[in-house]
């Protein structure tokens, strides 16, 4: 079920994120993820940051041990890929607001791309800790998206949380849908901001994953399994889940604060 592929291209997107491209002809839809196996280390869920054509890609942020190890992968190195798994963004809305925190842009960029190609207008509220960490800013712009930026330290765009930018945009413009990916607390705020305007919000969630087949329960949140019922959830499904934005489960299945 796994395909071992040699990485063809490595792009340092920001100081902390790296994109790996590899041949993987299986069709994929923006929002879906793959399981990326780093032989000898671990296998991690990664959103496809490039979904179109035979060459796919993932964009990985340095977090713990394995993601750092992923970053040291060079063209020619081999990784295992299975998937794509999960559901995806509904690309039918014509006016979309994207709210991206940190590496969340990885899941959102291909959705923006296909959406604009299909004639939609896309506005991106792009957040990061500091200017160099703004992931896919140029890529979004090159697609034709309108990009507004926020950084924690104010080194580019608005200073502070990207949710403030999103809030402003939601007040000043009309949108048919909001797509968001990033820390759950951020997504919770996005949901709150969109609520008064009745704009439907779709959140892409991250949970610990093992099987990605809806079996092992590692990725359970409330009645859902993020690997098969998600990763994209309409906000109403999440709002009543006590763990959303507060708890996740670690590798042993223990509930631990986010």
């Amino acid at each position: 079920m796994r395909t071992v592929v040699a990485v063809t291209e490595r792009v340092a997107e920001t100081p902390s994120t790296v994109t790996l491209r590899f041949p993987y002809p299986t069709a994929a839809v923006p929002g879906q993820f793959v399981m990326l196996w780093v032989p000898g280390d671990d296998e991690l869920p990664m959103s496809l940051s490039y979904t179109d054509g035979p060459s796919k890609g993932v964009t990985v942020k340095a977090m713990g041990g394995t993601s750092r190890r992923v970053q040291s992968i060079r063209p020619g190195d081999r990784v295992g890929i299975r998937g794509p798994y999960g559901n995806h963004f509904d690309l039918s809305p014509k006016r979309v607001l994207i709210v991206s925190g940190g590496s969340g842009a990885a899941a959102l960029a291909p959705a923006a791309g296909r959406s604009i190609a299909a004639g939609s207008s896309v506005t991106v509220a792009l957040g990061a800790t500091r200017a160099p960490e703004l992931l896919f800013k140029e890529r979004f712009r090159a697609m034709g998206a309108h990009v507004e930026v926020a950084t924690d330290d104010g080194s580019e765009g608005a200073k502070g949380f990207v949710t403030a930018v999103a809030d402003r945009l939601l007040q000043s413009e009309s949108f048919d849908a909001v797509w968001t990916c990033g820390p759950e607390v951020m997504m919770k705020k996005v949901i709150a901001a969109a609520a008064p305007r009745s704009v439907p919000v779709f959140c892409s969630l991250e949970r610990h994953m093992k099987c990605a087949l809806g079996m092992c329960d590692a990725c359970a949140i409330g009645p859902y399994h993020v690997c098969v019922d998600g990763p994209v959830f309409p906000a109403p499904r999440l709002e009543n889940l006590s763990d959303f934005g507060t708890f996740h489960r670690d590798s042993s299945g223990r509930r631990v604060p986010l």
Partner: protein
Amino acid sequence: MAELAVRCAGVNLRNPFLLASGVWGESGESLAGAWSAGAGGVITKSIGSVPRPGYPNPTIEAYERWGLLNAMGLPNPGIDEYPREIEIARRAGATVIGSIFAGDPEEFARLAVRMAATGVVALELNLSCPHAEGFGTEVGGTPENVEKVVRAVTKAVTIPVIAKITPNTGDAAGLALAAQRGGASAVSAINTLRALAIDVHLRRPVLSHGLGGLSGPAIKPVGLACVWQIFEKVTIPVIGVGGIASAQDALEYVMAGARALEVGTQVTFDGIGVFGRLATDLSRLLDELGFARLEDAVGVAHRASSVPPE
């Protein structure tokens, strides 16, 4: 519609299809979800004395729709935290069976007391993990060990105890008999078959642990043989598990001697809706074959056969 409710190991089940241990069993909401999808009961993930993260990924490998290899490494939140999950499932009305694993009879007994205190209707002892060092064949590989563990547990608790037997043996029936001697109220068979996959491009085992356990349709014929042989030897009820994907598979197990059934891997292939479908289909199949109650079909294939068991 034929009656699917059965009493097995002193527990009343609304239908014979139990959620197998290790599938959808880490969180209370998932247990509750399996129950509301129609499972006759739910068995928890095997819980140990302390939290265990399990092995690193890759932990699974799938073979089309006929098999699944896993070495999760018994990840579980540990008995201190797990009662919370059982509580959620019980509040949803689920019939919950608590699965536990341990390294020796004493640890089994201590854990059993804690698990029994959560209000589960029965315990299932995982005596059969094919890939976790110290918790598999070590406790479940010989009749002597099986009997010791089961006796320690049945002495410690009052609720029914189900011993889950390994198929990685030449004599599953001998192990089942030992469980009966130890006081088990039922035996379940089978757990996964010890198995391996190798990635030829990377020249290494696929699973991080190397060896794992095979489940799914591929092991149904093996599970049926175990249940058949066990049924010939023991008087306590047998619970059939391994590769059940259809009502026909289920009925094969029942006719081989199973009074109740567990379903695991098929949840992966069909989703949790498999429970509702299995119950409906089995009831219809029993009607078609002239059985008024599932119970009437238990073990009937032994009577027809003129061939002595091995």
